[in-house]
């Protein structure tokens, strides 16, 4: 599924208090790739991700994902788009504390098709949580919680996986394990993954690396030989 952004601006506030989170951003691709979006805090990484995920609207410009013009979507259209096309992985996991790992995934699986439980179990097994799926979030480690969040994002088999600082709350080892999982998913399923991070070292695992500064893409490069995430160090 292709992502195309043309002349995209995102402005918060008005007048002299206006803040331009994105300035005239143009982007094409990256279909079936793992793209790492790098940049310091406030550079517009998350905003870019939110616009692609249709949880926020661009102030100006055009965003098209898989031929869908996001600017034309109303609220219900955005819901349908997110449901069918996008999986989110957040920095703070954002799991429902009253549901088990399986139920957290099942909740999303139920949105798109029947037999959600079986699909949820399969995805949890894939992320290595077959024996922890009946535990509640409070009973899981941070890494396990993030793996549940990834499983939740994957269970509806979205063409695009959007990951916002997925290792931000994790220690080095666990973070690297999560990145490896995301890289494997991208490679094995030819899945488009947009991974936002401020950690420059993570860029080395991406098929493509976008660098943002003050709302502008200042560098867009391809890694001819991305390194295995398991070998990352920082």
């Amino acid at each position: 599924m292709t992502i195309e952004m043309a002349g995209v601006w995102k402005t918060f506030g008005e007048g002299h208090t206006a803040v331009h989170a994105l300035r005239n951003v143009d982007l094409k691709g990256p279909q079936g790739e793992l793209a790492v979006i790098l940049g310091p805090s406030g550079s517009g990484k998350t905003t870019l991700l939110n616009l692609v995920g249709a949880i926020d609207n661009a102030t100006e410009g055009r965003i098209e994902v898989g031929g869908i013009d996001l600017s034309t979507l109303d609220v219900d259209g955005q819901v349908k788009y997110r449901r069918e096309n996008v999986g989110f992985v957040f920095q703070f996991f954002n799991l429902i504390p009253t549901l088990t790992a399986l139920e957290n995934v099942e909740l999303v699986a139920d949105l798109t098709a029947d037999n959600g439980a079986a699909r949820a179990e399969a995805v949890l097994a894939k992320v290595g949580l077959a024996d922890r799926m009946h535990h509640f979030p409070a009973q899981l480690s941070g890494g396990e919680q993030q793996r549940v969040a990834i499983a939740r994002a994957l269970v509806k088999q979205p063409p695009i996986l959007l990951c916002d600082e997925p290792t931000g709350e994790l220690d080095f080892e666990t973070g690297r394990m999560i990145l490896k999982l995301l890289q494997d998913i991208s490679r094995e399923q030819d899945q488009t993954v947009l991974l936002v991070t401020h950690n420059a070292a993570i860029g080395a695992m991406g098929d493509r690396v976008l660098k943002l500064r003050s709302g502008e893409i200042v560098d867009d490069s391809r890694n001819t030989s991305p390194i295995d995430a398991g070998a990352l160090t920082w």
Partner: protein
Amino acid sequence: MVKPLQRKLRRDIGRHKPQFIAITITIFLGVAIFGAAWDSYSNLVASYDQTAVDYRFANLTIVGGDTEAIADAARAEPDVESVETRTTVDVAFRIEDTKLLGRAVGIPPGDQPAVNRLDVSAGFYPANGDTAVVLVEDHMANHFDLVPGDSFDILIAEAWQEVSVGGVALSPEYIWPARDRQDIITTPDNFGVAFVSESLAEQITGTAPNEVVLYYTDGEANEELTTRLSSAARDLGATNVYTREEQPSNNALTEDVKGLEEMAVFFPMMFLAAAGLAAYVMISRLVHAQRPHIGTFLANGFTRRQVLRHYLGYGMLPGLVGSIPGALVGVLLARTITRLYTSILSIPLTVVDFYPATLIGAIAFGVIASLLAALAPALVASRILPAEAMRGETPSGGGRRSLVERLIPPLRRIPTAWRMTLRGVGRNPRRTIYTIIGVVLSLMLVLVSWGMIDTVRNLMDRQFIEIQREDATVFFAGPTATEDVAALVDIDGVAAAEPALTLPVALSANGEHYETALMVLPDDTTLHRFADVGGGWIDLPARGVVLGQATRGLFGIEVGDAVAMTLSEGMTVSAEVAAFVDEPLGTMAYVGRSYAETLAGTALPATSALVAYEEGVDAKALRNTVTALPQVAAFEDANVLYDLMQRFMVLFYAFVGVMLVFGGAMAFALIFNSMSVNIAERTREVATLLAVGTERRSISRYITAENMLVAAMGIPLGLIAGYFAASAAMSSFNSDLFTFRLHIQPTTYLLASLAILAVALISQVPGLRAIRRISIPKIVKERSA
């Protein structure tokens, strides 16, 4: 260092404006009700007290016996300021076409009586020698439009004698126009009072004065003196002795005012408890959300006391803002209520005072309630460990399967979203409990109010339909033979007529006395039924006396024990108690005619007849036919009395309507706060669900279901608590004159429950609207959403 905290306090409250407004309004209502009810109560008590002093309202009234000797004994007492003898007699009045059994009260000619003075509101006080000029009591004058110069007839020695209306008067004895303690509810068509010259009153009775009225020094109560004089009076043949407190009108009014006193405690307590709970839920949530800030404060040198004070401020502010205007409005409202009340009841004097203690107390109650609510979360805030607090948010509730899922395993297979709803109920047990308490309090408020209506309606139906089965009572001008009573059946429209003989009686047993009426009824009466105290109905026993159940406790007697009955003629007989009956109104004594005649040793006449109508009869025409009979002095239509009481119920409906609105407001405030916090606490979850593609209406549905489930959990508890609260409230009005047994209709429970659920549903609207405004990108990225 303090000013920024104050600014923070103001801004925090500003950010949670609707929730704090809800708390403030609840405090306002509670404090206003307290101020209004308490000051009205104080004003009315003061009005009655002042009326009693200004009109020299008798401290003791003695009926029957050797009145001159009793008066002499009273005059010998230094603490008795005034003694007066007079004649009081129940006699037939004829005012145009209406015959009624009225009362003539003797007054001295030319000057006001020394005891029980009158307020002559129109006309003049009869001068010396004006024996045919009378003063008409206000209620009767109003009903029959009697003004000075009009005339009406009084039945004297079996002949109608015309008297002239000299004026209209208010009397402390008839502010509430009660015939006697057993006959408190009267209609102007069957009871009215005329103050006649003492000589005319004596002419009616044909005897010397039959009452002694005493006014103590400064009108002050004196229990010891009362006991001494009562005993002496009984020794001198008195058949009835009652104090100012027991005087029928005063007693009825005191019971009524007591309701205000209870209202001044019960209802504000409920509101302040609700406000306290709402404040607690809100402030607890704030403290939880502001843990990192609190940690920062403490880490930067704020003392724990400053933190404590800061969070107490969240209680103090709505407490003050709600209480001060609440107290002022309450105190001002009390003035209007007092004036309205005294004008409706025609109380001669209205005292409207300013009671600083009420104002201060009302404000203090409101502030203390909200401070207490803030205390627990404020203490939690002050005890937070800075390092721990700054580590980030604490989980807002751990996960586990809900109790209901554990009890009913198939529920584990319901859709995940609904499982989430079920578990949400137990997620924050304390908040769930407080919401449930809120529902319980609201239902209590509603059921206590509504229960009053149901109970009083049931009481009236039981008394006037089930027990007193007659359609009318016909009072005769003089003693009438039972055969003549039977002749009433020959009149078109009369289905049945039973002779009745009603006599004033003083009952005595175990050293206790109780004055009431003895009713002699046919052995096989069908127009009066007897409700057994154990439930069910009993026949009038062939032997012995049937007593109202209040005498059982008063005398400490049981069925089979003996009770002495002193009749007005001074005759005392002993009778065995055959049964106790459960009658909602009054505490009467009943005997069968055969047994009564055996005791008397002679055939007894009838003073009245109980009459049942034929179906479809024109009651007004029948009344005219019957009252035209020369031997008939008055006609009392039971249905008119019933209808009159139903009209009184309009006031009850208004009261309950207000309470329902208040209960709804209280439920709204509490449930709204609880629901808002519930939604606020899970903003991130909502945002996450939205981000993954869940529709907002689905999320709204889940949250609504969860909150409604919590509200529904409170319903059965609220119904039980409401039942007991209503039962306690009603039984507090119980006396020998009224037996209020709580009766709440099943539909009341249903409607009250539905009303609370509707309020719970409506109170979610603002929270659900907030879901629509949730900014997904903002929330999912925040550490502490």
